[in-house]
C-alpha cells in the first residue's frame, strides 16, 4: 500500500491528502516509478528498449559495449597533415570536410537519423583538444583500435593540440594545482570539455546554400575592395583573414550538405533494395527527401526542423569539436514548424500526438549520444551520458507568453518516455499559461528531476547587464535579451542568429570553496590529498587574531584560484581563435558572416562566469568558526586544527559542537547574515574584479553536478563538522544534506536573502514529499510554492520527488528499477547507475514536508 501524507490542521480544519489518482493507493511506494512510463507509440517503446545508453559513473562506462572510435582521430589527422602550409582556418575546414567522409549510421525504427562515430556504441575522440584525455582512453579498456595507431595519432597531436599550445604559459606547479581538481577544475585545454550555443535558427530559417551565397558575395566584395585603387594597407590587409574565414565557411558548408545528402542516398538505398516493411519503406523515403533538402535549404515543416536541428547538433557538439550541452530554446525554435505541420497541416501534416512521438524520438537520440570526455567528466555526471539541457517557457521578445503547443509537446514527451536526457529548464514567469505549468508539475511530480526552474525576469535582466560590456557595442537589445536558454545546467546565454556563446572559455569551469577553506587553515598547503602547496602562503592559524584576519586570508586564496582559472580560459580562447576555429559555426552566425571573423575570436555579447561548487561547506565552516572560536571562545583555532588533522577522532564532543553550529537554510539570522556576506563579498565580489576576454565581468554560477561527491572525496575534514572524504553540499546554494530542519519555506527565506543580481546563477536543490506532491492538493501547493519563490526573486529551484523506500528497493534489486530517475544536481540520472555512496548522499537530503506554517506563508487555499 502507498503511504499517504499525514493530515494537517490548517485554518481551522483538518486537511487530508488522498492521492490525485486513486489507483495509486494500491501501488507500493517501492515501485511507484515503474508504473509511470507510457511511451506514446510502440516505436518509441521499442527505441527505448534498445537504447544504447552511454551512462558513466566513477570514471567508467556502465554499459559494456562503449569504447573510443578511431575513425575521427584518423580523418582529422590525415587532413591536418595534408593541409600543412594552408591558413589555419582553412585547415580546420578541410579537417571537418574529411571527417564528414567517414562512416554514416542508419538505425532501425528511427525517425531522426545521424550519429557521430563509426559505430552507434562508440564515441569519437579529440586528440586536437587534449592529448591527456585521449591518453586516458588509450590506457583503458575503452582504447580505440588498433591501439598502436591511436598512440601514434595522439603523439602527433601532442604539440599541435590546444593543450600543447596552452601549457607552456603555466608553471608545472600551476598545472599540477589545476589538473588535480581539488581547489580548481582543470582548464578546458587539458580536459577537452566545452560548451556551445549553436545558432540553430539560421540553419532552419536560411539553409546552408544561402549561407554559401552570402560568403561568396562577401569574398567578391572583399576582392574588389583589395584590388581597387588606391591601395590602403590599414584598411585592406585585414581583409585577407576575412577572405580566408569566408572561404573556410564555404568549404565547411559544402561538406555538411554533402554529408547530409549521403544520409539521403543511404535511406533511399535501404528503402529500395532492403526494406521489406511497406510502412518503414515509406518512412525511409520521406527521411531521404528530408536529408536531401536540409540543412541545404530552409526547413518547411516540423520533420525538417527536427532533422536539420539534429544534424547541426551533431556537427557543433561532436563532429567538428566536442561540446557538452543541448542549449537552445526549443519551443521557440520549432513552433513555426509545429504551426505548419500540426496546426495548418500544410507540410509534413501530423497530429499533436505525432509531434510528441517525434520529440520522444529526439529524446532517445540524445540518450544514445556518447561523448569522448576526459575521465574527470566521466566522474562528475554519474548515472548519465553528459549534460544535455534544453530550455522552454519564459516570455517572448514582445513580452507575450513564450509557452505554446510545442512547449507542451516537449513536456508531454519527457513525461511519457522517461529518460534522463535531455534535461529541461523551464523559464518561470507569472504570465506562463496554466496548462503548460501543469505539465511542468507532472514531470516534477513523476520524479524526473526536471524541468528545473529558472526565474525569467532575473535571466532577462542579466542578458541586458552583460550586453553593456560588448566590445563592439552590439550587446543584447531589450528584445534580444528575452531570447535566452541555459548554456549548460544553470547559466543563461543568448540564443538566436548571433551573439550566442561559442566556447566554454567564455563561461564555465569550477572552483571549490570547501577545499579552499581547508588550505586557508593550513597556510595554503594541502595536507590531506596532494601533499603540496595549492595556494599562496596567507598565514598560519596563529596569525588569525580576529575573524576578519581569517576572512581576508580566505579572500586571498580564493582570488589566487580565480585569477588562475580565468587566465587559463582566456589563454585557451587566444589559441582557440588561432588553431581551433569553427568555420561551420561561423557560417551560421550572422555576426561572423557579416564581419568575416571566426566564432572563436568574435565576441559580441559577453557571458563570463565560473562555477563555485561546495560553497555551503565553506560558508557553514566560517559560521561555526566565528561562533565557537571568535564569539563564544569555546575553542581555539589550534584545538580545531588538531581535531581536523585527526579527522575528529578523539574530538567527538567538539565535532558535535561544530556540526550543531547554526547552518544555512533554516532562516537563522546568525548564519544567514554571514553567509550572505560570503556570497556577495567574496564569492561574487572577488570574481567580479576580473575582466575576461570579452571585456565583461565574470560572475559566479553556484552549482554542483557530481563534483560535490568528487571534490568531497579530495577534501579533508572541515569546520562545519564534516569528516574527511564526505560529500560536500549538493547545489550552488542548497543547504547541506540533512541540515535544513525548519521546512521548505525557511529554505526559501534563507536563499532569498542573497542579492540575486550579484550572482550569475545559484542552484537550489529541494526534495519534496512524494505523498504530498501526488495528493489531490499537490498541484495547488506546488503552484503556491512557485509563486512565492518567484516573488522572493530567487534565481532557480529544482526538485527530487522520490521516496527513500523506492531508492532502498532499487539498491537491493537494481535490475528491477531501471526506470528510476533522480535529480543529482543540474542533471538527472538513472539511480541504479550511481555509486552506492552517491545514492546514499541523495537519500540523505531532507525530504521537505509542508506544515501549517509553511502553508500560511505560501498563502495556500486547501
Amino acid at each position, binding site marked *: 500500500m502507498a503511504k499517504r501524507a499525514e493530515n494537517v490542521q490548517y485554518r481551522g480544519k483538518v486537511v487530508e491528502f488522498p492521492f490525485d489518482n486513486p489507483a495509486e493507493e494500491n501501488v507500493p511506494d517501492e515501485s511507484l516509478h515503474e508504473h509511470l512510463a507510457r511511451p506514446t507509440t510502440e516505436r518509441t517503446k521499442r527505441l527505448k528498449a534498445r537504447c544504447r545508453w552511454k551512462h558513466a559513473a566513477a570514471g567508467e562506462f556502465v554499459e559494456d559495449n562503449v569504447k573510443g572510435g578511431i575513425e575521427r582521430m584518423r580523418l582529422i589527422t590525415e587532413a591536418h597533415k595534408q593541409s600543412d602550409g594552408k591558413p589555419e582556418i582553412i585547415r580546420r575546414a578541410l579537417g571537418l570536410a574529411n571527417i564528414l567522409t567517414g562512416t554514416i549510421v542508419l538505425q532501425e525504427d528511427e525517425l531522426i537519423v545521424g550519429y557521430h562515430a563509426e559505430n552507434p556504441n562508440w564515441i569519437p575522440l579529440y586528440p586536437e583538444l587534449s592529448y591527456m584525455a585521449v591518453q586516458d582512453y588509450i590506457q583503458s579498456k575503452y582504447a580505440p583500435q588498433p591501439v598502436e595507431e591511436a598512440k601514434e595519432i595522439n603523439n602527433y597531436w601532442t604539440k599541435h593540440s590546444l593543450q600543447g599550445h596552452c601549457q607552456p604559459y603555466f608553471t608545472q606547479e600551476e598545472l599540477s594545482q589545476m589538473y588535480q581538481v581539488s581547489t580548481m577544475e582543470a582548464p578546458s585545454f587539458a580536459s577537452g570539455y566545452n560548451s556551445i550555443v549553436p545558432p540553430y535558427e539560421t540553419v532552419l530559417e536560411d539553409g546552408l546554400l544561402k549561407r554559401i551565397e552570402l560568403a561568396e558575395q562577401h569574398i567578391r566584395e572583399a576582392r574588389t575592395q583589395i584590388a581597387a585603387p588606391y591601395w590602403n594597407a590599414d584598411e585592406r590587409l585585414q581583409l585577407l583573414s576575412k577572405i580566408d574565414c569566408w572561404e573556410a565557411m564555404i568549404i565547411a558548408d559544402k561538406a555538411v550538405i554533402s554529408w547530409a545528402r549521403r544520409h539521403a542516398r543511404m535511406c533511399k538505398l535501404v528503402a529500395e533494395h532492403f526494406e521489406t516493411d511497406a510502412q518503414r519503406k515509406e518512412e525511409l523515403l520521406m527521411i531521404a527527401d528530408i536529408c536531401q533538402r536540409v540543412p541545404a535549404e530552409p526547413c518547411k515543416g516540423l520533420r525538417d526542423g527536427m532533422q536539420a536541428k539534429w544534424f547541426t547538433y551533431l556537427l557543433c557538439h561532436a563532429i567538428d569539436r566536442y561540446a557538452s550541452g543541448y542549449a537552445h530554446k526549443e519551443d521557440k525554435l520549432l513552433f513555426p514548424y509545429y504551426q505548419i505541420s500540426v496546426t495548418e497541416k500544410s507540410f509534413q501534416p501530423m497530429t499533436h500526438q505525432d509531434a510528441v512521438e517525434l520529440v520522444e524520438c529526439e529524446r532517445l537520440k540524445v540518450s544514445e549520444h556518447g561523448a569522448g570526455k576526459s575521465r574527470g567528466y566521466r566522474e562528475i555526471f554519474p548515472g548519465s551520458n553528459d549534460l544535455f539541457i534544453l530550455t522552454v517557457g519564459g516570455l517572448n521578445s514582445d513580452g507575450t507568453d513564450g509557452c505554446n503547443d510545442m512547449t507542451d509537446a516537449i513536456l508531454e514527451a519527457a513525461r511519457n518516455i522517461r529518460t534522463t536526457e535531455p534535461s529541461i529548464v523551464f523559464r518561470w514567469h507569472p504570465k506562463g499559461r496554466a496548462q503548460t505549468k501543469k505539465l511542468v508539475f507532472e514531470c516534477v511530480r513523476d520524479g524526473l528531476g526536471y524541468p528545473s526552474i529558472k526565474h525569467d525576469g532575473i535571466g532577462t535582466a542579466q542578458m541586458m547587464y552583460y550586453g553593456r560590456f560588448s566590445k563592439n557595442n552590439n550587446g543584447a537589445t531589450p528584445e534580444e535579451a528575452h531570447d535566452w536558454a541555459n548554456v549548460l545546467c544553470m547559466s543563461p546565454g543568448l540564443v538566436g542568429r548571433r551573439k550566442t556563446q561559442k566556447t566554454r572559455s567564455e563561461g564555465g569551469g569550477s572552483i571549490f570553496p570547501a577545499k579552499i577553506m581547508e588550505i586557508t587553515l*593550513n597556510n595554503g598547503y594541502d595536507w590531506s*590529498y*596532494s601533499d603540496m602547496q595549492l595556494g599562496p602562503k596567507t598565514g598560519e592559524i596563529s596569525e588569525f587574531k580576529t575573524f576578519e584576519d581569517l576572512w581576508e586570508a580566505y579572500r586571498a586564496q580564493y582570488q589566487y584560484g580565480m585569477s588562475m582559472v580565468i587566465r587559463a580560459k582566456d589563454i585557451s580562447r587566444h589559441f582557440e581563435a588561432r588553431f581551433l576555429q569553427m568555420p561551420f559555426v561561423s557560417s551560421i552566425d550572422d555576426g561572423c558572416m557579416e564581419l568575416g571573423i571566426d566564432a572563436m575570436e568574435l565576441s559580441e555579447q559577453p557571458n563570463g562566469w565560473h562555477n563555485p561548487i561546495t560553497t555551503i561547506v565553506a560558508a557553514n565552516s566560517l559560521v561555526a568558526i566565528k561562533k565557537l572560536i571568535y564569539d563564544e571562545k569555546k575553542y581555539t583555532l589550534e584545538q580545531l586544527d588538531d581535531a581536523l588533522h585527526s579527522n575528529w577522532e578523539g574530538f567527538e564532543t567538539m565535532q558535535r559542537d561544530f556540526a550543531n553550529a547554526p547552518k544555512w537554510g533554516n532562516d537563522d539570522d546568525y548564519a544567514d547574515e554571514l553567509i550572505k556576506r560570503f556570497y556577495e563579498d567574496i564569492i561574487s565580489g572577488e570574481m567580479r574584479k576580473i575582466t575576461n576576454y570579452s571585456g565583461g565581468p565574470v560572475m559566479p554560477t553556484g552549482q554542483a553536478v557530481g563534483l560535490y561527491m568528487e571534490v568531497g572525496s579530495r577534501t579533508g575534514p572541515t569546520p562545519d563538522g564534516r569528516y574527511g*572524504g564526505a560529500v560536500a553540499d549538493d547545489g550552488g546554494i542548497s543547504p547541506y544534506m540533512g541540515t535544513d530542519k525548519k521546512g521548505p519555506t525557511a529554505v526559501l527565506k534563507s536563499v532569498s536573502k542573497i542579492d540575486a543580481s550579484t550572482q550569475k546563477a545559484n542552484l537550489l536543490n529541494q526534495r519534496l514529499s512524494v505523498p504530498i506532491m501526488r495528493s489531490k492538493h499537490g498541484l495547488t501547493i506546488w503552484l503556491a510554492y512557485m509563486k512565492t519563490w518567484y516573488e522572493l526573486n530567487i534565481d532557480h529551484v529544482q526538485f527530487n520527488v522520490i521516496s527513500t523506500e523506492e531508492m532502498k528497493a532499487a539498491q537491493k534489486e537494481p535490475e528491477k528499477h531501471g526506470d528510476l530517475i533522480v535529480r543529482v544536481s543540474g542533471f538527472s540520472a538513472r539511480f541504479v547507475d550511481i555509486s552506492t555512496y552517491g545514492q*546514499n548522499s541523495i537519500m540523505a537530503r531532507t525530504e521537505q514536508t509542508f506544515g501549517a506554517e509553511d502553508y500560511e506563508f505560501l498563502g495556500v487555499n486547501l
Partner: protein
Amino acid sequence: MAEVKKRAFDMVREPGTTKPCLKCKWGIEDPTDPSVGQCTSGRTTEGGVWKRLIHDYYNTTCAKFTEGEVDFRDHV
C-alpha cells in the same frame, strides 16, 4: 614556521616496481593527467572514499597493493 602535519600514508615511489598503483585495484587515474593517480583505499565509515593523490601513478606502490578492479558502485 609551524610544523606541517601530513596525512599518514605509506605510499613510496619505487621506479620500475612490479606492483605499481596503476595495476592496483584501489588505484584510478587522475581526472586530467593519466600519469598521475588517485588512491581510493581510504574508505570512510559511511562508505565514501577519502582519496589521496599519487604523483607518479606508474612507479608508486604501497603495502595495500592488490591486483584487480573495483566496481563503479563501490567508488565515488
